[in-house]
């Protein structure tokens, strides 16, 4: 839906087209500073401009770009289904799953597993400060899945009961780590300590060319909401909305490119971007 708005563009030269697309992406990023938007925008740009050098006639070129744009959109909407198809087999009958905050991809995975007549229970963290976990719990109750909302602080307490942890991701970075709602890193460290598998589900357009070394290294424009960045002068008072989970804590990533280990993410990124 975000990307539909990028399609109608008017530009006389290829360069002009690229400029206006970039400007549109930047506008969007200013409004909603999420990692997914920036990575999706960049990948969209690259995907449609791959053909820009082949055709001589500009109008034909534009048409081709539009077609590729449509193709890209279609691929994205199908990607969630692909991920769900890959992941639901990892949920065994009678499993207890822990998830964090609200993620549409995780919801889709759990829907598919429920449709396959599997019985499982879900623990969702409340995920302050926006209590997004409650929305996730409501959606799951509509699917008739037994769900419990737990405090963010109770993750360590609950982990001995669960069998696996599934989270979504706002961005997948070059090292194979993920950027997700604050509290994910904590969950990953606890699940490593308990030896529980930690699975991440993400679409491939979320792969981004960042390489954070630690929490501090994640750029500020992702950590805080866009309006916070504009209004507040001293960021040390604000609380960040996301955190970075290093690849050593992640067992597997489920993407529409397949089931990947964290070290394979770099391989895929090289293929996508080079």
């Amino acid at each position: 839906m975000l990307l539909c708005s990028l399609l109608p563009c008017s530009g006389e030269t290829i360069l002009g087209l690229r400029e206006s697309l970039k400007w549109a992406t930047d506008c969007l990023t200013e409004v909603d500073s999420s990692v997914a938007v920036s990575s999706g925008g960049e990948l969209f740009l690259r995907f449609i401009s791959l053909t820009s050098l082949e055709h001589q006639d500009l109008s034909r070129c534009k048409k081709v770009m539009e077609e590729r744009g449509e193709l890209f959109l279609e691929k994205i909407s199908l990607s969630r289904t692909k991920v769900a198809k890959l992941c639901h087999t990892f949920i065994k009958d009678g499993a207890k799953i822990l998830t964090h905050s609200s993620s549409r991809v995780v919801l889709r995975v759990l829907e598919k597993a429920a449709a396959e007549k599997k019985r499982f229970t879900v623990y969702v963290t409340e995920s302050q400060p926006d209590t997004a976990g409650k929305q996730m719990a409501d959606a799951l109750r509509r699917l008739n899945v037994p769900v419990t909302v737990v405090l963010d602080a109770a993750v360590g307490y609950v982990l001995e009961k669960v069998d696996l942890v599934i989270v979504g991701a706002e961005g997948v970075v070059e090292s194979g780590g993920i950027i997700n709602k604050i509290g994910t890193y904590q969950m990953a460290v606890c699940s490593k300590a308990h030896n529980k598998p930690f699975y991440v589900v993400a679409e491939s357009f979320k792969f981004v060319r960042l390489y954070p070394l630690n929490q501090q290294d994640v750029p500020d424009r992702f950590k805080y909401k866009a309006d916070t960045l504009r209004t507040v002068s001293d960021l040390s008072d604000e609380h960040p909305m996301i955190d970075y989970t290093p690849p050593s804590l992640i067992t597997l990533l489920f993407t529409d490119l397949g089931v990947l280990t964290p070290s394979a993410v770099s391989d895929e990124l090289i293929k996508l971007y080079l």
Partner: protein
Amino acid sequence: MADCGEADGPVKKDDIVRAKNEGKELTKEEKQRLRKEKKHQKKQKDEKRPSERVKEKKPVAPSQPVATQPPTQKAPTVLPASAPIPVPVSGAPSYSSPAPSPADKPAKSRAEQKAERRARQEADRASKQQSCSSSSKTKAPPSELNPVVKRLPEHVQVDDPAVVKRLTKKFERQQIPLRSDYDYKVSLFSHLHQYSRKAPLTQQLSIPSTVIHPSIVRLGLQYSQGIVVGSNARSVALLHAFKQVIRDYTTPPNEELARDLVNKLKPYISFLNQCRPLSASMGNAIKYIKKEISNIPSQFKEEEAKTKLQTCIDRYINENVVLAAKAISKYAIEKISDGDVILVYGCSSLVNHILCEAYDKNRKFRVIVVDSRPRLEGREALRRLVQRGISCTYVLISALSYILPEVSKVFLGAHALLANGYVMSRVGTSQIALVARTFNVPVLVCCETYKFCERVQTDSFVSNELDDPDDLMVTRKGKTQLENWHDVSSLRLLNLVYDVTPPDFVDLVITDLGMIPCTSVPVVLRIKNLEQ
């Protein structure tokens, strides 16, 4: 042929000893004779199976001596010799092409040479198509089935006498002196070479040496005495020396520049390898040069070919060292933020370059330089950084765990990146990476892509370099405690040069292609192989 070889044995031995003492290069005829003897040896070995092996070994030794027979006498013997050669297939053709084939027929024209080669290839193809009933062909299918049978490199088999004998024979043939090992080795490392700096290889060469180009002799001396150190510096010095060699090279008559120059470089490389074992970057550079030389089309005139090669070398240095350093600095500067405390180890030209660039771009950081004996390379890094105005602290590696709580990032250079993601670098690097990992300090390795190599190693024992153990002796207040360490039979000194760091300790590798995790090194190698 074997019989006449044995008969001329003693006479030829004197000749070759005389030729060696005079330091003259073996004339072309002598070399051809050597090659022909060997080829004949091999052909006989193919026809007569293992029972004859023992008998063949003896003719091999006296076959080395060579006679200065006039070429006309050899021409008629060459023809019948080449005729039976196409018939035994297996190892002989692959061994004999391309080096001996042009030199074998001095009296023939190029067209006739080409015709003979074509005839030989036809014969090979024909005999390969036949069923593998004959004994000589049983050798061919196994070698085709496992074409990737890798043999251990010779420099890690020093304690195997057969390998040592093979090496000495190779050096005799190439006419370079053999450097003797400094025998007081730690038994765990007895499979590696250890040389003493007091006995450089150049002492056994005559001056001026006509076999080895003087710039190569100088380079070898600079390596073995530790005047040129650091993998970038060594590779660039090597390439400059090769440029000089190419400049002074003239193609001998009836030779192709492409083939002859490659053969000329082989003894130089053996010589340099003995002065100081080649680094991975030097190995890749040599591979590149050899490829460029053999790809020179034959219609190029000599001057054209030489200028082309020199521009190739300049471009290689520019792309892989100079521009790569610029690209790596660009990525690395993104990772340096204001207020950082950066730890560096030893003296890496790339890391120093990065820090100086970052300082020029007004990043506020300070540096801690860690150093270790016996090389004390950190002092050189310290000097360069302080000259720029960067505030530095200097510690020895024993103070590492004391200083690490202050550090925010560790920047390390690398000698080579192995195909399984391990980082080969100066000894002490893996210790720093290990301790940094325990303190949760990110470790960044900076390495150009031309240092990536296909080797796989998981420990520092299998393949390493042993430096002169006498360097470990230290004189304080006029007394050297270890002065007579030879006399103590249970004491051995060990001076290792490299160690390997596992990829779990390294957080990020910065290359000219971008920032990659340590596990993605084989991906980069794959891309590079595709490009070639």
